[in-house]
């Protein structure tokens, strides 16, 4: 084999390799392809994965994502219908369903993202501005579970919602979908990721929360004092009832006893009142005469009369 022959073979081999690599391309599971010929698309987009053929050198494979893609909105400061400024952070999911259209209208993914920025930010601004804050926060009219502090829930929060978060998300989604239908993309879902008060409002809300808590704390303290006072009052009433009832019963019993004793005495002493007076006087005398008593005995008294007589 001459040296020239080897060089020729080598060049042919290289050329063949070049043509082969130009004529084939691999489509990944995650990709779809639009073939372009000198910049203008040819044929149907390729959406199935595998090894594919194309014309070498003149056709280019433009790759597009087939997977679901994320769109993450910037945190926007938006006013609600009731003039509350909130930070709204959103996300959406979308995919390229018609790569050809997508390629023609938006060129590449960056174009798609920036168009989605316009559409979704605009639509969420519209929707937020059309509804009160509570509609964005609440999802359903679920009753709050009863906690001890339920009384603290303000009137605004008690308002029934007409739409709710989910419905607003759907509204944004529907409106955005209508505007993206001819871009070759499909928005599958749109959600409010974060909703927060802007700083000034947040300060107000914190102040309100603090005063609300203080009120609840006061209420608890007052409840405690009130309940304690009630119990103390009850105690006093009970105490007085018990002691006075006991006193009344005791006095009744004593009265009845005194009365029957009096009757018994009267009945006995009425047998001979004079004799009773006499015996009773004797008893009284006996009981009252102590060691310090001085007794004067008259000679004409009962006791000494006999002395006189005997003189």
């Amino acid at each position: 084999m001459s040296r020239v022959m080897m060089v020729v073979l080598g060049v042919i081999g290289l050329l063949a390799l070049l043509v082969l690599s130009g004529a084939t391309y691999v489509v990944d599971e995650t990709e779809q392809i639009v073939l372009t010929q000198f910049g203008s698309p040819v044929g149907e987009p390729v959406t199935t994965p595998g090894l594919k053929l194309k014309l070498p050198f003149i056709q280019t494979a433009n790759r597009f994502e087939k997977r679901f893609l994320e769109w993450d909105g910037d945190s926007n400061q938006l006013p609600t219908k009731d003039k509350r400024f909130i930070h709204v952070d959103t996300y959406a999911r979308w995919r390229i369903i018609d790569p050809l259209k997508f390629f023609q209208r938006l060129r590449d993914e960056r174009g798609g993202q920036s168009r989605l920025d316009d559409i979704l930010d605009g639509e969420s601004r519209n929707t937020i501005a059309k509804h009160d804050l509570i509609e964005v926060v609440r999802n359903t009219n679920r009753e709050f579970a009863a906690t001890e502090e339920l009384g603290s829930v303000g009137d605004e929060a008690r308002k029934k919602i007409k739409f709710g978060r989910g419905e607003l998300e759907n509204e944004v989604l529907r409106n955005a979908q209508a505007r993206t239908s001819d871009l070759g993309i499909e928005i599958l879902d749109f959600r409010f990721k974060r909703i927060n008060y802007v700083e000034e409002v947040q300060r107000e809300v914190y102040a309100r929360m603090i005063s609300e808590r203080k009120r609840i704390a006061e209420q608890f303290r007052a409840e405690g004092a009130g309940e304690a006072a009630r119990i103390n009052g009850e105690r006093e009433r009970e105490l007085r009832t018990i002691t006075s009832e006991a006193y009344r019963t005791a006095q009744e019993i004593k009265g009845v006893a005194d009365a029957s004793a009096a009757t018994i005495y009267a009945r006995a002493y009425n047998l001979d009142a004079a004799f009773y007076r006499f015996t009773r006087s004797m008893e009284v005398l006996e009981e009252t005469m102590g060691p310090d008593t001085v007794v004067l005995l008259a000679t004409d008294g009962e006791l000494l009369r006999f002395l006189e007589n005997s003189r």
Partner: protein
Amino acid sequence: MTRTIRSMPGGPDFRPPDVNPRSAGLVILALLVALALWSSIFTVAPEEVGVVLTFGRYSRQVDPGLNFKLPYPIEVVSKVPVQRQLKEEFGFRTQRAAVRSSFVASQEEALMLTGDLNVAVVEWTTQFRVNDPFKALFRVRNPIETFRDMNEAIMRTVVGDRSVSEVLTIGRQEIASEVELRLQELCDQYELGLKIEQVVLQDVNPPDEVKPSFNEVNQAQQEREKLINEARTAFNQIIPRARGEAHQTIEEAEGYATDRVNRAEGDAKRFRALVLAYRKAPEVTRRRIYLESMQRILPRVRRSIVVDDEFKGLVPLLNLDGPRATEVKP
């Protein structure tokens, strides 16, 4: 969920040494064969499965162990840890807690509005597994980012339907299970190929600025219980005792009554008996009783003074404080 092997490292452009071209070709051929063999063998770790693509198209799923495939440009393998429990943290970061920026970002993550338009700081973790490697690899780009977004959106939706008190106290378990449920639904809808194992609420707090007043409420609650308990204690100390004392009073009155009536009856019986005796000899009995009484009285008294009728004005002369004297004058 990285696609591990997307490209092989290209050989460095090396200058062929000045040798016989034939043997050089052989060396290159041998190198190529070795490379092809090396990229045909791969191992799958026990917690993983391998997904093999042939020219970009899904061909098969292989189990842990030693496996073979066609060499690199033709077949590519991606490994997915299906057995491993994965975890995402929201509102805090365990590993990077020291990094200021991630801390700030996570505060934002945890701050949310409650249904009564208050603010709560909710931190949570979500544990999950990949249960469909195909979907996890090929249906969604950046599945973890998407998953985090979903978590945040759903947690806020659920918290948005609850009052701040509920979120902070009794609602925790319910919130976690509802988030879990909705998250799984959304995962299925998004075709993420993920299975939610558990959503766990970590610290749930009021914002720092408001915390002291929440503590004050707790304190007030304690105070209330304390006041009520004290009053109850006093009640329980005093009332049963008063009942006992009332009982005592009544019993004593009963005792008094019995005593009084018995005594009266005793006295009456005694008197009655005495009267009967007296009636038999009134004069004698009277005198006897009088004299007996005197007999008992006189020894006890300090002085007995006998006064005759003729002595007048005696009383002022008596030294009433003097010693006991039993002067009996005729």
